[in-house]
């Protein structure tokens, strides 16, 4: 249990920090297990339990410290275990591996090769983190401590130089100096808009109304994005520190952290962090004896994507429905309860302590001319190493997907990458050399957004992908204004018809009018950018749309209404696997009889395609299905060495 000690002056904090650092034994054996949400989903808690019992069984309880940490970004390789002080990184650890780890690595100090990181392309094992190819190309500034510190320990954060930026701010800088520093650093909002942060801060600061509020937006509605969850779960104090510094600069004394309902562990971790900070005198009245008062409350979302929009978020905190309002009068002037409110994304707040500590010049030296600093992306979809990556702005898309992501899963061909969530668009292969930054991505019709990056391969149908986003927004629209509510309904139905083979050329003309109206006349950014996925999909993949409408064919063979499954009688080995998997018993055949699919019964679910181990099932689109094989046809047995 941590000893609580109220820090009532700058010297208190410094002494406390030096005390922890001195008490840390560099030779102390520590076993650190990642327990963020992703790792828990793959069984990390069971690994922790097994370690507890195994360490006790082998008489090491009290000699080896067991620690829970956040995630280090290699989500595909979870659960991850790190042994200190040697810094040995083990991945894909199962409870069965634990006794071996305790005996071999902890007691005998030998490394277990099969648990080291294995590069999927070369097959090489890496002992050090720096040798891992995807790690090498990253520049982990914000996520430096994730995976190393216990998110529920304020001591860990303080001993890693946490709250030094707050010290510097409260005792060495005036509020307008802080704003000046952020202005020099050219920090742009990491929530998606890329709006210069210093302008928002200054507008709120200069607004002539009290009280002022600062808000952390951790709603992260973009599907496919989890950077904010990761930061709040793994290093909540860094966000808090940035928030306190921001509040000091703006002159606010009350802050809110808005976390979506689907992130229970993140909400818990930051609530614990707030309580700890209050106990230690880093939040509340007279912080560290500086005279500055500031309090923070946590508000949970309730399952609405639209409440991530800044004005809708504020109405949600007020206890009403999340309806955006037109921002002709900015929320920085009239926001929460009509008072000046400054809302920023989690990543923006977490960057503030770094800028204050290391200076604006250092921050500008990272990244590009227009966008300084690093960007955190959640690289997901059909890549080999999915996970959270942090790279300097200006890294090319190709670098991200192939060098860091390890290329496309299963050796398939890359088709497109989707950035920016439902407001962004698809970027095709020809732009793989595009440097990633706020302005470059907008030039090709997409946007950087919050940082979600979904990679798609040749098996993804671009019409279906556009349909997914339109359906998503149609479900999540608040329904207040006519263009968005009705426009999305019509778009959704039209694209559905196209995917089912009922599309007509005239449909596309109607779509153009609706898209223009939505873009110009919608009330909020959700409606205004709702058509981006459809527009980019049409722009770069027009041939797929034409194929769907005119030839009733799905190029990627993904749209169910336009494909048929066919078992090749030359390859079928009559193993009966697909027969058993079929939910509607549409496959005929027997133990020594080649199987065939009854097309009238088939629901195109794909279960047989997934089950077949002999690659005997093919998907056909707009091609005639060959006739079924003669009844009783025997399979052509393949020899063992194929």
């Amino acid at each position, binding site marked *: 249990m941590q000893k609580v000690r109220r820090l009532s002056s700058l010297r208190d904090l410094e002494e406390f920090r030096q005390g922890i650092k001195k008490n840390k034994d560099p030779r102390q054996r520590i076993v650190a297990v990642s327990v963020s949400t992703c790792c828990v989903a793959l069984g990390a808690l069971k690994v922790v339990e097994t370690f507890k019992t195994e360490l006790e069984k082998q008489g090491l309880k009290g000699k080896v410290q067991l620690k829970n940490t956040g995630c280090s970004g290699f989500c595909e390789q979870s659960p991850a275990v790190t042994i200190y002080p040697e810094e040995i990184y083990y991945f894909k650890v199962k409870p069965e591996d634990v006794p071996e780890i305790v005996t071999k690595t902890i007691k005998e100090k030998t490394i277990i090769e099969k648990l080291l990181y294995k590069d999927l392309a070369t097959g090489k094992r890496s002992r050090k983190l720096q040798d891992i190819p995807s790690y090498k190309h990253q520049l982990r500034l914000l996520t430096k401590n994730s995976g190393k510190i216990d998110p529920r320990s304020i001591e860990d954060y303080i001993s890693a130089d946490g709250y030094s930026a707050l010290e510097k701010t409260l005792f060495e800088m005036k509020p307008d100096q802080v704003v000046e520093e952020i202005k020099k650093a050219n920090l742009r909002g990491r929530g998606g808009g890329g709006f210069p942060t210093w302008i928002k801060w200054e507008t709120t600061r200069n607004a002539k109304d009290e009280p002022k509020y600062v808000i952390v937006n951790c709603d992260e509605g973009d599907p496919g994005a989890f950077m904010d969850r990761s930061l709040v779960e793994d290093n909540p104090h860094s966000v808090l520190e940035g928030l306190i510094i921001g509040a000091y600069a703006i002159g606010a004394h009350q802050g809110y952290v808005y976390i979506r309902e689907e992130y229970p562990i993140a909400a818990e971790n930051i609530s614990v962090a707030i309580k700890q900070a209050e106990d230690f005198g880093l939040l509340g009245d007279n912080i560290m004896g500086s005279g500055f008062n500031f309090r923070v409350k946590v508000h949970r979302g309730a399952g609405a994507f639209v409440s991530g929009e800044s004005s809708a978020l504020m109405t949600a905190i007020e206890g009403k*429905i999340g309806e955006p309002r037109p921002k002709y009068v900015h929320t920085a002037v009239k926001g929460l309860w009509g008072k000046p409110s400054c809302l920023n994304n989690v990543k923006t707040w977490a960057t503030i302590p770094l800028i204050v500590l290391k200076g604006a010049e250092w921050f500008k030296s990272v990244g590009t001319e227009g966008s300084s600093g690093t960007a955190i992306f959640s690289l997901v979809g059909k890549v080999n190493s999915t996970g959270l990556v942090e790279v300097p702005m200006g890294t090319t898309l190709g670098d991200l997907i192939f060098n860091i992501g390890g290329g496309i899963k299963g050796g398939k061909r890359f088709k497109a990458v989707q950035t920016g969530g439902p407001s962004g668009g698809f970027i095709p292969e020809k732009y793989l050399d595009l440097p990633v930054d706020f302005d470059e991505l907008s030039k090709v019709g997409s946007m950087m957004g919050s940082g979600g990056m979904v990679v798609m391969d040749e098996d993804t149908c671009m019409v279906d992908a556009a349909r997914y986003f339109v359906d998503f927004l149609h479900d999540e629209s608040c329904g207040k*204004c006519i263009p968005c509510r009705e426009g999305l309904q019509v778009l959704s139905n039209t694209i559905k018809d196209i995917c089912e083979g009922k599309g007509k050329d005239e449909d596309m003309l109607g779509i153009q009018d*609706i898209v223009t109206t939505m873009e110009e006349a919608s009330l909020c950014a959700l409606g205004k950018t709702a058509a981006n996925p459809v527009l980019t999909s049409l722009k770069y993949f027009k041939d797929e749309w034409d194929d769907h409408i005119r030839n009733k064919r799905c190029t990627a063979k993904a749209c169910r209404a336009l494909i048929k499954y066919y078992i090749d009688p030359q390859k079928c080995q009559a193993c009966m696997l697909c027969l058993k998997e079929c939910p509607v018993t549409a496959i005929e055949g027997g133990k020594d009889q080649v199987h065939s699919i009854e097309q009238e019964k088939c629901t195109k679910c794909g279960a047989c395609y997934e089950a077949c181990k002999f690659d005997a099932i093919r998907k056909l689109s707009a091609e005639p299905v060959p006739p079924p094989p003669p009844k009783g046809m025997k399979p052509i047995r393949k020899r063992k060495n194929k």
Partner: protein
Amino acid sequence: MKNLTLRIDDKDIPANEGMTILEAAKNAKIEIPTLCHNDELEPYGACRICSVEIERKGRTQLVASCCYPVEEGLKVKTRSHKIDKIRKTIIELAAVSAGIDVTGRMRELASEYNADLSRFRSNVKTEPTKCILCGLCVRRCIEATWDTAIGFIGRGVTRKIATFPEKVSVCTNCNHCYSVCPTGRISSIGADPKFPEVDDILAGRE
């Protein structure tokens, strides 16, 4: 209150600080169509028909004139080819849920802008509701009673207006909701529930 001047359709119009473009235009007898606006209620900004083109710092954009505050020297255009096309599409989109049998202000605007109410209606297979969710009836009821008998429920396309049976006693038969409806949805005078009951809608019986 500060006096300022803005330019609407190449005419200098005087206005007071705190007014919206719509108010200033009304004072100068310039017509801007509206569906969800009522002079006695707070502006809502839901129908977007009142959209006008403004020019500010070299950029033009479309804004809802019922909500946009006037500024010194603001340049406003209330009719143009682009604005008319957008207004026409908005009316056609409103008819997707409302259907083609609307009367009242919406029918007048449809004929003024040559809107084809069945253009996008063919894409959906739901029953027409005659309601464009402008919210005038609910907002008027809030002004009259605070604890209203009708209200919005749901989100997005499932957004509807429902009656709360526990509060029907609050309904004073003022018939204000009938007098403000722009599509003719509320067509009867009297105490019958003007909208389906909330339990029926939630259970899927409506």
